[in-house]
């Protein structure tokens, strides 16, 4: 079961982070967003945290041995792919209009 969790973790974190980023974007455009916080700064900060977390997962997967070379290879490649996906899907926060 631990192995299954290791295989599931990278993309699950990607999905949660991606959804959270989208949710944060919605929140920054809503009536609940506090006036003192710059929306883009918050989004860039959240995206950076998200990418760092995915990087941490990749590092941990590569450093910690799995029960078999197959599991190690698959878990590490999934983590690398999820990190690349997090970078790619976070890029829009750098430039595009947030609420229009």
């Amino acid at each position, binding site marked *: *079961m*631990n*192995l*299954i969790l290791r*295989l*599931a973790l990278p*993309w*699950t974190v*990607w*999905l949660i982070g*991606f*959804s959270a*980023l*989208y*949710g944060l*974007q*919605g*929140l920054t*455009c*809503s009536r*609940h967003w506090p006036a003192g916080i710059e929306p883009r700064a918050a*989004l860039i900060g959240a995206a950076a945290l998200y990418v760092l977390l995915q990087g941490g997962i990749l590092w941990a997967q590569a450093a910690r041995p799995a*029960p*078999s070379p*197959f*599991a190690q*290879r*698959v878990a590490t*490649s*999934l983590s690398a*792919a*999820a990190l690349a*996906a997090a970078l*790619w*899907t976070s*890029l*829009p*926060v750098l430039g*595009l*209009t*947030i*609420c*229009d």
Partner: protein
Amino acid sequence: MTTRPRGTALRLHRELKRIWSPDPRFRGWLTTNNNNDVGRLFLAVATLFFLIGGVLAMLIRAQLATPGSAFMGPEAYNQVFTMHGTVMMFLFAIPFFEALAVLLLPGMLGTRDLAFPRLGAFGLWVYIFGGSAVIVAMLMGLSPDGGWFMYPPLSSAAFSPGIGADVWLLGITSIEVSAIATAVEIVVTVLRYRAAGMSLSRMPIFAWYILVVAVMILTAFPPMILGSLLLETERAFGLPFFQVENGGDPLLWQHLFWLFGHPEVYIIFLPAAGMIATILPVMARTTLLGYGWVVASAVSLGVLSFGLWVHHMFTTGIPHLGLAFFSAASTLVAVPTSVMIFSWIGTLWKGRVRMELPMLWLLGFFATFVIGGLTGVMIAVVPFNWQVHDTHFVVAHLHYVLIGGYVFPMIAAIYYFQPLITGRFRFFRLGGIAFWLVVPAFHVTFLAVHLAGLLGQRRRIWTYDEGQGWELLNFIASVASFVMAIGFALVVLDIAINTLAGLRGRRNPWQATTLEWAAPIPSPTYGFASIPIIGSRYPLRDDPKLDLRIARGEGYLADTSRDRRETLIVSTAKGEPLQVAVLPMNSPLPILLALCTSASFLAPLIKAYWLSVVALIGVVILALIWAWTTAPRRTEGLVDAGHGRHLPVAAEGADPPGWWGSLFLLVADGVHFGALLFGYAFLWTVAPNWPPPAYLRPDLLPVALALAGAAALAAGPRLAAWREGHGPLLLSLLGCLALAAAAASIPLARPTPTAHAYDATLWLLAGHVGLHVTLSLIMLTYLGLRRLAGHPLRLGEARTFGLWADYTAGTGLVALAAAWLPGAFA
């Protein structure tokens, strides 16, 4: 494996056949829970629905063949296209691959049956009852007519009066329950019920794909079920979740629907991809290139598909940044899909391809799916999406993906596995003609539909005027579609004729390397005479005599003296033998439970809410009988599994199959709860008429009751694990009652759920707590009755109840906090 004397195989076959066979009379079809019978029935019914969906498609093309056609009026056309999509997606595509999984998975994994045979039979009957209700409604002219994705406000009571939309919401939801039941069964089977020595890296590739798909079903269907619940309660009782004037928002439906709807496309594609990855290497007489990469791609594609839902909503006025997020995520899908495609092409490259009929259909897949994938990338780009949204271009794209990516590989799979399923080989050669009718006609049809879409023809419009440049394209598409339909009819006819009158032959006709071909042809009800012991990913290639040794009983569990259905449970990662699972015998319980479940879903269609309540009581009683009759009556300790190993019976372990099943069912339940919180947050953040006139302010007593109740409920099962007596169960009971009282305070304080979407949401949060407290109480009743009957509480039972109790306590607290916190801080 140990060696046994000659003649053992036949004796073993006779004894296992006696133990595993269904009742030979007609009632055997109603009481069987064997995967072979359930799978074949599933397959036959799904094929029937495919034919119905196909006839509806022909009606659509007949109507669109000429401008201003009088063949159908708009009312009939709306029903026909809605039912075509609904039948194909919910009644054919998903059940068809589930049928193949039920039928073939135990053989591929080297086990004798699925983990929960009765649950599989229950899923089948719920599907048959729910699907039949939807079709009967159509024949009575009571079909839904708002499109297969049922957007409100069109599907709300104001604009869709009558029961058409209710038929969709209730009928389809019941079928989703069936899908979830089957998914739980598949996940637990793949993780735990395998041949000895079958580590994760030795699993057949289809098992990886279907594992990913089953987890996707568990996580994609709950948002849809929640959406259906919200829309049905709005239609039936006026809870205004989607009514803007009362704090609702129709966009909430689109989010919930596409949270399901987009992964659904991959739920349909991935099993087909699993079949391709299984069949292609055999046809190329080699092994799959890049097994690990394909596994990683399947996992990646499965999860990525959940991050794309908003790309179906690009034209709803979402801000640019949101569009860019989902456009970026949508383009990512091409990466794992390409890894798979290149793996398959590489496999063909390194092998020596034989051009058998399954291979022909796989080539049809390549030619079609790649085009569908490329038009998918086009649609992922926002400006292009805006141009072609709701046009026939999208219709053509989705048919390229679904027919090319699903139907063609599934036909290949049927031809490939026909000897195993029916025991017959192809003799009549209609299949080749059918292929050359279907594939070219498909491309002519949908190329024309693509072009009509690019020229601006809208989908879901019952007719069109002359002079727009669409006439010839539509006429060509319609003629070609009828040729395609004739081709599909020939496929069905070819398979039917060969099933009835094909040649009989020897096992493993394709010289495949995976375990399902080690079984006799057709696969017997018990699957394997003994559980295989394997040492590689390609057991039949590396151990050519394995099939004979399995038949002679030289694997595990060849001893039939215990006179019951047994199979092996192994460790998830390494495939080491851990436990002996005792599977249930034939029973009418699954069909009876399915009857009550379906009645509880469908009775509201005729406003017979009392019948729904009666049926639900029936569900509870039957579920208790089910659990009671499958629980072991005595403690056995270790039993002889063969090869000098003595293993515990699974029900006596700390993690019995029920614990695993509960774990994955709770995953689905957790996603449902998460979707409910998402809906609440969405309305709170985005809906125009928020905040509500007043938030609910929490009182001290309900808060204290909630905290104490949750603590008691969580503590009870933990105490039960190490302490005898009634105390732990009573503590859990008190916890349930306190939590229920806390939840009840919400509707008492806000008695009008129709006033505002906020009030309706509060009722739903309280309902979530109430439902799970009720489930916990039912489990407590069962455990209490078992104690009264003199059965001590087993560790596994306590841990299984503990899972439910923890979930009820945890989500109960979160639900109540979500209800109270806005008021506390307002």
